[in-house]
Protein backbone atom coordinates (compact mmCIF):
# COMPACT_ATOMS: atom_id res chain seq x y z
CA UNK A 1 0.00 0.00 0.00
CA UNK A 2 1.25 3.46 -0.89
CA UNK A 3 0.84 6.06 1.74
CA UNK A 4 1.88 9.65 1.73
CA UNK A 5 3.39 10.25 5.12
CA UNK A 6 3.98 13.95 4.83
CA UNK A 7 3.88 16.55 2.10
CA UNK A 8 4.31 20.22 1.44
CA UNK A 9 5.23 22.77 -1.16
CA UNK A 10 7.59 25.65 -1.72
CA UNK A 11 7.62 28.44 -4.28
CA UNK A 12 10.26 28.59 -7.03
CA UNK A 13 10.04 32.24 -7.99
CA UNK A 14 13.58 33.55 -7.48
CA UNK A 15 17.18 32.39 -7.44
CA UNK A 16 17.02 32.46 -3.67
CA UNK A 17 14.10 30.02 -3.83
CA UNK A 18 16.39 27.56 -5.67
CA UNK A 19 18.76 27.67 -2.70
CA UNK A 20 15.84 27.21 -0.28
CA UNK A 21 14.50 24.29 -2.35
CA UNK A 22 17.92 22.60 -2.18
CA UNK A 23 18.01 23.06 1.59
CA UNK A 24 14.48 21.73 2.01
CA UNK A 25 15.27 18.63 -0.07
CA UNK A 26 18.47 18.08 1.92
CA UNK A 27 16.46 18.19 5.19
CA UNK A 28 13.87 15.73 3.84
CA UNK A 29 16.52 13.35 2.49
CA UNK A 30 18.30 13.44 5.85
CA UNK A 31 15.04 12.81 7.65
CA UNK A 32 14.61 9.71 5.48
CA UNK A 33 18.17 8.72 6.33
CA UNK A 34 19.26 8.58 2.70
CA UNK A 35 22.96 7.84 2.23
CA UNK A 36 25.13 10.92 1.65
CA UNK A 37 25.46 10.07 -2.06
CA UNK A 38 21.68 9.66 -2.43
CA UNK A 39 21.08 12.92 -0.55
CA UNK A 40 23.50 14.70 -2.86
CA UNK A 41 21.90 13.22 -5.98
CA UNK A 42 18.40 14.25 -4.90
CA UNK A 43 19.52 17.76 -3.89
CA UNK A 44 21.35 18.20 -7.20
CA UNK A 45 18.34 16.93 -9.18
CA UNK A 46 16.11 19.39 -7.29
CA UNK A 47 18.49 22.23 -8.04
CA UNK A 48 18.45 21.44 -11.78
CA UNK A 49 14.66 21.20 -11.95
CA UNK A 50 14.07 24.28 -9.80
CA UNK A 51 16.34 26.30 -12.09
CA UNK A 52 14.52 24.95 -15.16
CA UNK A 53 11.17 25.96 -13.63
CA UNK A 54 12.51 29.44 -12.95
CA UNK A 55 14.49 30.09 -16.13
CA UNK A 56 12.36 28.33 -18.75
CA UNK A 57 9.02 28.15 -16.93
CA UNK A 58 9.05 31.67 -15.49
CA UNK A 59 8.70 30.33 -11.99
CA UNK A 60 6.58 27.65 -10.40
CA UNK A 61 6.19 25.44 -7.37
CA UNK A 62 8.00 22.48 -5.86
CA UNK A 63 5.69 19.93 -4.23
CA UNK A 64 7.28 17.31 -2.03
CA UNK A 65 5.90 14.07 -0.66
CA UNK A 66 7.44 11.51 1.63
CA UNK A 67 6.18 8.11 0.53
CA UNK A 68 5.85 4.85 2.36
CA UNK A 69 5.14 1.76 0.27
CA UNK A 70 4.87 -1.24 2.54
CA UNK A 71 7.55 0.20 4.75
CA UNK A 72 9.79 1.31 1.90
CA UNK A 73 10.36 5.03 2.16
CA UNK A 74 10.89 7.42 -0.69
CA UNK A 75 10.97 11.08 -1.54
CA UNK A 76 8.99 12.40 -4.49
CA UNK A 77 9.35 15.93 -5.84
CA UNK A 78 7.15 17.56 -8.43
CA UNK A 79 8.16 20.79 -10.13
CA UNK A 80 5.30 22.53 -11.85
CA UNK A 81 5.44 25.72 -13.85
CA UNK A 82 3.00 27.64 -16.01
CA UNK A 83 5.60 28.54 -18.61
CA UNK A 84 5.55 28.10 -22.39
CA UNK A 85 5.98 24.33 -22.18
CA UNK A 86 8.40 22.15 -24.13
CA UNK A 87 7.58 21.99 -27.87
CA UNK A 88 9.83 19.04 -28.70
CA UNK A 89 10.14 16.57 -25.86
CA UNK A 90 12.36 14.17 -27.77
CA UNK A 91 14.87 16.94 -28.38
CA UNK A 92 14.69 18.19 -24.79
CA UNK A 93 15.50 14.68 -23.56
CA UNK A 94 18.61 14.42 -25.76
CA UNK A 95 21.95 14.52 -24.01
CA UNK A 96 23.82 17.70 -24.81
CA UNK A 97 20.82 19.59 -26.11
CA UNK A 98 20.12 23.02 -24.66
CA UNK A 99 17.71 25.75 -25.62
CA UNK A 100 19.44 28.31 -23.48
CA UNK A 101 22.68 28.84 -21.69
CA UNK A 102 22.93 25.50 -19.91
CA UNK A 103 25.28 22.66 -20.50
CA UNK A 104 22.55 20.56 -22.02
CA UNK A 105 22.63 18.15 -19.12
CA UNK A 106 19.53 19.41 -17.32
CA UNK A 107 16.81 16.87 -18.01
CA UNK A 108 18.73 13.81 -19.10
CA UNK A 109 21.33 14.35 -16.39
CA UNK A 110 18.65 14.76 -13.76
CA UNK A 111 16.95 11.57 -14.92
CA UNK A 112 20.14 9.64 -14.18
CA UNK A 113 20.19 10.93 -10.59
CA UNK A 114 16.82 9.52 -9.57
CA UNK A 115 14.92 6.20 -9.59
CA UNK A 116 11.79 7.48 -11.29
CA UNK A 117 11.41 10.37 -13.70
CA UNK A 118 8.24 11.61 -15.33
CA UNK A 119 7.74 14.65 -17.48
CA UNK A 120 4.52 16.12 -18.76
CA UNK A 121 4.54 19.23 -20.88
CA UNK A 122 2.64 20.84 -23.71
CA UNK A 123 3.03 24.12 -25.55
CA UNK A 124 1.11 26.74 -23.62
CA UNK A 125 0.32 24.37 -20.78
CA UNK A 126 3.46 24.54 -18.68
CA UNK A 127 5.74 21.72 -17.60
CA UNK A 128 5.51 19.24 -14.73
CA UNK A 129 8.48 17.09 -13.82
CA UNK A 130 8.13 14.44 -11.12
CA UNK A 131 11.12 12.62 -9.67
CA UNK A 132 11.30 9.93 -7.02
CA UNK A 133 14.17 8.44 -5.13
CA UNK A 134 13.67 5.39 -2.91
CA UNK A 135 15.68 4.59 0.13
Amino acid at each position, binding site marked *: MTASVKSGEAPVRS*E*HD*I*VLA*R*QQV*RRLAQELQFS*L*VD*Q*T*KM*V*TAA*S*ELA*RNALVYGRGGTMHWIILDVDGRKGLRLKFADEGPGIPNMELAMT*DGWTSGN*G*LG*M*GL*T*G*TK*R*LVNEFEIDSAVGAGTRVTITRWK
Partner: protein
Amino acid sequence: MEKIPILRMGEFLLVTIQIDMHDQLALKLQDDLSTAISRNASKGVLIDISSLEMVDSFIGRMVADISGMGRILGAETVLVGMQPAVAITLVELGLSLPGVATALNVERGMALLRQKIDADGADDGQR
Protein backbone atom coordinates in the same frame (compact mmCIF):
# COMPACT_ATOMS: atom_id res chain seq x y z
CA MET B 1 25.77 42.31 -0.49
CA GLU B 2 27.14 38.79 -0.13
CA LYS B 3 30.57 38.29 -1.56
CA ILE B 4 33.01 35.42 -1.77
CA PRO B 5 36.45 36.64 -0.71
CA ILE B 6 39.41 36.24 -3.06
CA LEU B 7 42.72 36.01 -1.23
CA ARG B 8 45.97 36.95 -2.90
CA MET B 9 49.05 34.88 -2.11
CA GLY B 10 51.91 36.16 -4.20
CA GLU B 11 51.25 35.15 -7.78
CA PHE B 12 48.27 32.99 -6.79
CA LEU B 13 44.67 33.73 -5.95
CA LEU B 14 42.85 31.57 -3.42
CA VAL B 15 39.09 31.22 -3.23
CA THR B 16 37.25 29.14 -0.66
CA ILE B 17 33.57 28.68 -1.36
CA GLN B 18 31.87 28.02 1.94
CA ILE B 19 28.26 28.85 1.29
CA ASP B 20 25.45 27.47 -0.82
CA MET B 21 25.70 30.01 -3.67
CA HIS B 22 22.73 31.34 -5.54
CA ASP B 23 23.31 31.81 -9.26
CA GLN B 24 24.05 35.55 -9.23
CA LEU B 25 26.65 35.07 -6.53
CA ALA B 26 28.37 32.42 -8.65
CA LEU B 27 28.39 34.78 -11.64
CA LYS B 28 29.74 37.59 -9.48
CA LEU B 29 32.58 35.37 -8.32
CA GLN B 30 33.43 34.63 -11.94
CA ASP B 31 33.51 38.36 -12.66
CA ASP B 32 35.52 39.25 -9.55
CA LEU B 33 38.04 36.52 -10.31
CA SER B 34 38.70 37.64 -13.86
CA THR B 35 39.19 41.19 -12.62
CA ALA B 36 41.54 40.01 -9.87
CA ILE B 37 43.58 37.82 -12.26
CA SER B 38 44.03 40.72 -14.62
CA ARG B 39 44.77 43.33 -11.94
CA ASN B 40 47.33 41.20 -10.11
CA ALA B 41 48.74 39.46 -13.19
CA SER B 42 48.11 36.23 -11.28
CA LYS B 43 49.64 33.02 -12.57
CA GLY B 44 47.34 30.63 -10.75
CA VAL B 45 43.91 30.30 -9.17
CA LEU B 46 43.06 27.75 -6.52
CA ILE B 47 39.37 27.14 -5.84
CA ASP B 48 38.58 25.16 -2.70
CA ILE B 49 35.11 23.59 -2.73
CA SER B 50 35.56 21.24 0.23
CA SER B 51 32.62 22.89 2.01
CA LEU B 52 30.28 22.57 -0.97
CA GLU B 53 27.70 19.82 -0.48
CA MET B 54 26.40 20.08 -4.01
CA VAL B 55 27.65 21.12 -7.43
CA ASP B 56 24.96 21.33 -10.09
CA SER B 57 25.34 22.09 -13.80
CA PHE B 58 25.28 25.84 -13.15
CA ILE B 59 28.15 25.79 -10.69
CA GLY B 60 29.94 23.23 -12.86
CA ARG B 61 29.70 25.58 -15.81
CA MET B 62 30.93 28.48 -13.70
CA VAL B 63 34.01 26.51 -12.68
CA ALA B 64 34.68 25.47 -16.28
CA ASP B 65 34.25 29.09 -17.43
CA ILE B 66 36.61 30.43 -14.75
CA SER B 67 39.18 27.88 -15.82
CA GLY B 68 38.86 28.81 -19.50
CA MET B 69 38.81 32.53 -18.83
CA GLY B 70 41.81 32.26 -16.52
CA ARG B 71 43.78 30.42 -19.20
CA ILE B 72 43.17 33.24 -21.67
CA LEU B 73 44.32 35.73 -19.05
CA GLY B 74 47.46 33.70 -18.38
CA ALA B 75 46.44 31.94 -15.17
CA GLU B 76 46.06 28.23 -14.47
CA THR B 77 43.10 27.11 -12.35
CA VAL B 78 42.98 24.13 -10.02
CA LEU B 79 39.80 22.98 -8.31
CA VAL B 80 40.40 21.24 -4.98
CA GLY B 81 38.57 19.44 -2.20
CA MET B 82 35.55 18.06 -4.02
CA GLN B 83 33.59 15.76 -1.70
CA PRO B 84 33.27 12.19 -3.00
CA ALA B 85 29.44 12.32 -3.01
CA VAL B 86 29.62 15.49 -5.09
CA ALA B 87 32.05 13.88 -7.55
CA ILE B 88 29.84 10.80 -7.98
CA THR B 89 26.78 12.98 -8.56
CA LEU B 90 28.56 15.25 -11.05
CA VAL B 91 29.69 12.34 -13.19
CA GLU B 92 26.19 10.80 -13.23
CA LEU B 93 24.78 14.18 -14.13
CA GLY B 94 27.09 14.05 -17.15
CA LEU B 95 29.59 16.71 -16.10
CA SER B 96 33.17 15.53 -16.09
CA LEU B 97 34.55 19.11 -16.14
CA PRO B 98 36.83 18.68 -19.16
CA GLY B 99 39.71 21.12 -19.14
CA VAL B 100 39.46 21.75 -15.41
CA ALA B 101 42.47 20.64 -13.39
CA THR B 102 41.57 19.11 -10.04
CA ALA B 103 43.42 17.97 -6.95
CA LEU B 104 42.41 16.20 -3.76
CA ASN B 105 43.26 18.99 -1.34
CA VAL B 106 44.76 22.47 -1.09
CA GLU B 107 48.29 21.19 -0.55
CA ARG B 108 48.26 19.00 -3.66
CA GLY B 109 46.46 21.74 -5.56
CA MET B 110 49.23 24.22 -4.77
CA ALA B 111 51.86 21.69 -5.87
CA LEU B 112 49.96 21.13 -9.13
CA LEU B 113 49.71 24.88 -9.76
CA ARG B 114 53.46 25.32 -9.21
CA GLN B 115 54.18 22.44 -11.55
CA LYS B 116 51.91 23.88 -14.26
CA ILE B 117 53.43 27.34 -13.96
CA ASP B 118 56.98 25.99 -14.02
CA ALA B 119 56.12 23.99 -17.15
CA ASP B 120 54.71 27.12 -18.81
CA GLY B 121 57.87 29.04 -17.84
CA ALA B 122 60.05 26.33 -19.42
CA ASP B 123 58.02 26.56 -22.65
CA ASP B 124 58.50 30.31 -22.74
CA GLY B 125 62.27 29.87 -22.31
CA GLN B 126 62.50 27.67 -25.38
CA ARG B 127 60.93 30.22 -27.66
